[in-house]
């Protein structure tokens, strides 16, 4: 972010801290696309992505008045997103342990990203490929999935991810390495 943007973001945060609805709206609109994108890839379906998105911005709304500028707003939002994703995965695990075989149609099976090639010959192939990749991603343990999503899809620096996940850079590297190895194994037949 350039310094002019940073100043304008700081002003927006100060206004939002004072209850300014316009400023809060602008802050949400600046960051929510990335939050939704991470949530969608992490969760793998629209319903769960919605839950994560809601949880993140309700927390941001409740906590903005206590925001002390000790980190960038994006880092703070990423941290909230990471926590929301991980607690979501934990809840899912509890649910699946309680009822090991969920009924068909209870969840939307896959998250569909809009495809510019829709209705062309390549569409089905792309969709199939996309489903395979999404499925492979879902087999990763939550922390590996999160690191892989943030590094690969959102090109975040490892130190940023480490800050958001509140762990060391070395740990993030380990998650990334293991995630890449597992993805390779899952998609071996396509390589």
């Amino acid at each position, binding site marked *: 972010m350039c310094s002019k943007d940073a100043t304008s973001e700081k002003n927006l945060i100060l206004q939002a801290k004072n209850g300014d*609805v*316009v400023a809060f*709206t602008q802050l949400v609109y600046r960051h929510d696309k990335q939050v939704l994108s991470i949530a969608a890839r992490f969760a793998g379906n629209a319903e769960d992505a919605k839950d994560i998105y809601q949880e993140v911005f309700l927390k941001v709304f409740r906590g*903005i008045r206590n925001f002390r500028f000790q980190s960038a707003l994006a880092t703070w939002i990423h941290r909230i997103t990471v926590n929301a994703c991980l607690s979501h995965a934990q809840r899912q695990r509890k649910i699946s342990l309680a009822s090991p075989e969920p009924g068909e149609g209870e969840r939307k099976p896959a998250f569909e*990203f809009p495809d510019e090639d829709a209705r062309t010959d390549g569409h089905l192939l792309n969709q199939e490929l996309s489903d395979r990749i999404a499925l492979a991603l879902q087999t990763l343990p939550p922390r590996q999935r999160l690191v892989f999503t943030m590094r690969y899809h959102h090109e975040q620096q490892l130190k940023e991810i480490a800050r958001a996940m509140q762990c060391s850079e070395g740990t993030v590297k380990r998650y990334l390495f293991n995630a890449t190895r597992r993805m390779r194994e899952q998609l071996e037949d396509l*390589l």
Partner: protein
Amino acid sequence: MIHSRYRRLLSLDLYGELTPGQERSLHRHLESCPECRTEQKKLKALHALLDTERSREPGEELLAEMRQELSFSLRGTRAETPTWDSLRSVLSAAFAPRLSYAFGLIAAFTLGGFLGYQLFAPERLEVSSVASWEPERLVRESLAGNLRIAGLRFVETAGSPPQAIFTLESVIPTRLKGAVEDPDIQKLLAYALANERNPGVRLRAVNAIAPHASMAADREVKAALILVLKNDDNAGVRSSALEALTHYPYDQEIRDALLLTLLYDENPGVRISAINSLDTLSRHGMTSDQAVLDVFRRTLQNDTNDYIRMKAQSVIQEARQQ
């Protein structure tokens, strides 16, 4: 052991996460290790495969849906206020003991002034939102296009002027209410008129402006009405804008807008309104110049509507007799 170390480096290399030393060491190893070179090719193939999917993002529709649901969830949710401890620490850091008396005095005056204002100043505009903020700022932000007007309705109660209630699209549900004749409300109505996608909102806005148009006589409102008359897709909205413009003091801008409407509007109803208005003005001796007569002649020759041609002929004849 050695391979497992280099495989880790290979993986991180593709993310550009190696130090220059690690990079050199890896490249030296790759030159002499066909097994790791194969592994590198596989990893590159994996990244190429993933790249086909990487740029895809959730669509705008889903994002809009999420924002709307968030707005709904925020109803009744309140932001946390800073804890007393953090407030106290901020205050004690900001004010030395001797300054605290001065601060107290200033605060008392400010609070007194604020309460006095709140108790005795008439409220022009009312805001309903879970967040507190100034209505004037909301008007400014809406006029700047930072907040979209999602809805507009009017409330009339006996003995008081009609009120316009704007619902504004933001993540926190917000409504702004004020008298239709209020200048700020008139500006918002004009903005809604020129920018709203919903023809129902535009029509309600223009109908609200019309009775107060001559009173407000605001340039921005008049410009919005002219813009709508020339460009709006909806004939009902254009017709109402024309009606509102007839309440304004007649001038060349309004004359030109009426003449353009007469020549080019595709709806005969709107053209009839335009020629009737021009006829009324001409009877008051206001539109009998050569440019106006030329338009009437072209209308007489080209318009497909019998009434409009007859009306144009009558105006031309009257002008000849004068």
